[in-house]
């Protein structure tokens, strides 16, 4: 999604490996967790982030399912990158992704009907999650197999982390439990709105506020350190 100009000016744009073949380093994995976190930094794939994070179990299930599709489609796209004609690449990626989503869909149905019912249509909607298509287009289609594998795992972990950070907060506040285990005594009055739709918006907004604040504080420190704007408000 598009960001407002003042935001994109201060956040360095995600560096999408300009060198044709990236060498495998720890950064290949860690980048997805923090610097290029798909949810908090790139603001991609927001729909499942908001929709299925009302409990931490749902969040974890969704995160793992998305990671599976991300890794599977990344590996296949990377293997086929020299065979897919440029003109039909997006259509091919979507078909590959849809195949893996169908696998996950039937897989979750076989493993846990309860989770399947809770996630609902959002398992099938992984197919239109822009994180996955974005990674296929920007990374997997250009990189070798092993770097793609590690990078997709990192991205998936970052996505799962973001889902969990919403899911746990919402479940604790809205239900007083964590992974279904009650945290507070009998007297706890749940903040029900947090597990309802508005809570998703509020909690994600709060996380972004926190990150904005941290970023601004860091920038201010850097500016003071270099003495450029020592007395700026």
């Amino acid at each position, binding site marked *: 999604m598009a960001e407002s100009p003042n935001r994109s000016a201060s956040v360095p744009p995600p560096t999408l490996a300009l060198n044709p073949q990236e060498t495998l380093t720890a950064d290949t994995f860690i980048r997805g967790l923090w610097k290029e976190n798909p949810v908090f930094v790139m603001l991609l794939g927001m*729909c499942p982030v908001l929709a299925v994070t009302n409990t931490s179990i749902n969040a974890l299930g969704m995160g793992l399912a998305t990671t599976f599709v991300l890794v599977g489609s990344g590996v296949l796209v990377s293997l086929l990158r020299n065979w897919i004609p440029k003109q039909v690449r997006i259509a091919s990626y979507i078909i590959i992704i849809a195949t893996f989503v169908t696998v996950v869909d039937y897989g979750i149905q076989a493993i846990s009907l309860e989770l399947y019912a809770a996630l609902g249509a959002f398992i099938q909607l992984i197919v239109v999650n822009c994180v996955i298509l974005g990674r296929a287009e920007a990374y997997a289609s250009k990189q070798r197999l092993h770097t793609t594998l590690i990078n997709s795992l990192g991205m998936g972990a970052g996505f799962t982390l973001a889902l969990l950070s919403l899911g746990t907060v919402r479940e604790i506040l809205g239900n007083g439990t964590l992974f279904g285990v009650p945290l507070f005594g009998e007297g706890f009055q749940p903040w029900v709105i947090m597990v309802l739709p508005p809570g998703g918006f509020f909690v994600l907004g709060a996380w972004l506020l926190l990150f*904005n*604040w941290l970023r601004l504080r860091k920038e201010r420190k850097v500016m003071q350190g270099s003495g450029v704007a020592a007395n700026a408000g």
Partner: protein
Amino acid sequence: MQDESLYLIFLNAAVVNNFVLALFLGICPFLGVSAKKETAWNMGLAVIFVMLVSSVSAYGINWLLTELDLLFLRLICYIAVIASAVQLVEMLVKRYSPALFRSLGIFLPLITTNCAILGLALFQTAKEYDFVQSLVYALGAGGGFMLALMLMAGLREKLELARVPSVSQGAAMSLMLAGLLSLAFMGFAGLGGSHG
């Protein structure tokens, strides 16, 4: 077959289970294209049109795949047909209204990867709506999407003139606004029955 009345289906899709504010479908365009009312209006129209097209095609595909007993191919077929439908709209818009094409920019092709469109196709299949019901459902969902988008755009235009703390600029502020809108839309709960 569902025997819900058409009026209830429309009301349900448009406000009670609003695609954006209650079901969280189509958040990306909702946050991305809601900075100006005019663009939001155009985007809303495009979404309504694509929803109608994909609703019709999804109905056809589902019928065909049920006949052939190939339901596991449903997701792949849906996404392929919807993507082609969007391409068609894009070409038509480019041909007949270059100004509109420019103002929508990259968001027309992105409607393809909009979960609201695919979600609509999946929900109408899950609810077993017949042809007319599907159309009304698509119209309601598209209308609801447009309503949410326009409300958001109006609020954000006002906010342009307000002085907000620097930490809350950008996406964080939009999300808080969306939360408040969603809170308001919860007031419609129970109005049209409680079908998800």
